[in-house]
């Protein structure tokens, strides 16, 4: 018993130190601009000096299109227009294919270009970005958790409900009494 208590105390101290060590690297909760919440880096770097004017005018550079094609994006995922967000940051708009326009909006912002020194870094917007920004207009439901769980991830929730149903059936099969109930002693 004493050994268990001592090792327990050791684990408490160890976990506390671990938490302090890890907590410094956690991004602020709900920060939409931290990397895993916002963007995926595509490992494309372009020359800033010659392309910046084109991007400001809204022209899609040929280099960007060919490099995106080399990565493996489909034809309907190539940028059609460039919008300037602010100095040094642009976003590229695509129009999704005919079949997806029932569900997706007609124009969709897809790539994010950021100036970093003399280079331009190209990012792909993460899917969660669209859910967070557009979900309220697309579903008229203010609660983000509800519209993601019940609408965008409807199949997941259907499966989850089926799992709960299966658990209930399993407990019923194992433990259900088979003899008759005795008479109730008094009315409720």
């Amino acid at each position: 018993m004493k050994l268990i208590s001592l090792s327990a105390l050791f684990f408490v101290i160890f976990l506390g130190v671990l938490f302090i060590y890890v907590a410094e690297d956690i991004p602020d909760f709900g920060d939409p601009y931290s990397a895993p919440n916002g963007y995926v880096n595509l490992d494309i770097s372009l020359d800033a000096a010659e392309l910046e004017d084109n991007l400001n005018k809204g022209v899609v550079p040929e280099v960007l299109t060919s490099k995106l094609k080399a990565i493996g994006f489909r034809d309907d995922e190539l940028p059609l227009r460039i919008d300037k967000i602010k100095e040094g940051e642009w976003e590229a708009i695509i129009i999704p294919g005919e079949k997806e326009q029932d569900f997706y909006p007609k124009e969709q912002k897809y790539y994010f270009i950021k100036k970093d020194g003399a280079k331009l870094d190209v990012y792909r917007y993460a899917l969660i970005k669209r859910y967070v920004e557009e979900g309220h207009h697309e579903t008229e439901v203010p609660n983000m958790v509800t519209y993601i769980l019940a609408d965008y991830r409807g199949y997941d929730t259907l499966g989850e409900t089926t799992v709960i149903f299966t658990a209930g059936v399993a407990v019923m099969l194992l433990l259900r009494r088979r003899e008759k109930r005795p008479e109730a002693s008094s009315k409720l």
Partner: protein
Amino acid sequence: MSTKNSEAGEGKERAGDVIVETVARLMVPFIQLFALYVIIHGAGGPGGGFQGGVIFGASFVLLVIAFGIVNAGDRFPEGANTAFMSLGVYIYAGVGLLCIIFSLGAAQFLNYGFIPLTTHFEENRALGMDLVEIGIGITVMAVVTSIFFNLAWKREPEEGGEEE
């Protein structure tokens, strides 16, 4: 759980506590009202089908704890409970199928916007989500209640020897 020992003996005499029974009888409607509020309000704030269903089931658990399982079991018919268990899943999957039916095969399964409840696509999606949450709530309520009833039931001691 004060009633458990007396009930486990022979199931005839049960020493009920007046305070516990009265408070439980008063509390149960309010708990159920709160559960319905949580289910319906899941779109606007924290809450949803799972939480509301569990709270609704907890009201029946409170009934069992206060009145003993024999009396509470009379109050809650078990055949209907079993039907409710599958009814919720049927509602969920049925709403998903309605989308396909109303759009004549154009929309995907569970694409709520195509159910013609209102004229707006977005509001259809919101209402479809509410229907789905109700389905989840019914299933979870029935499963929680059924698991607790099956777990808490004690076999009678005189016929306890028989297995199967």
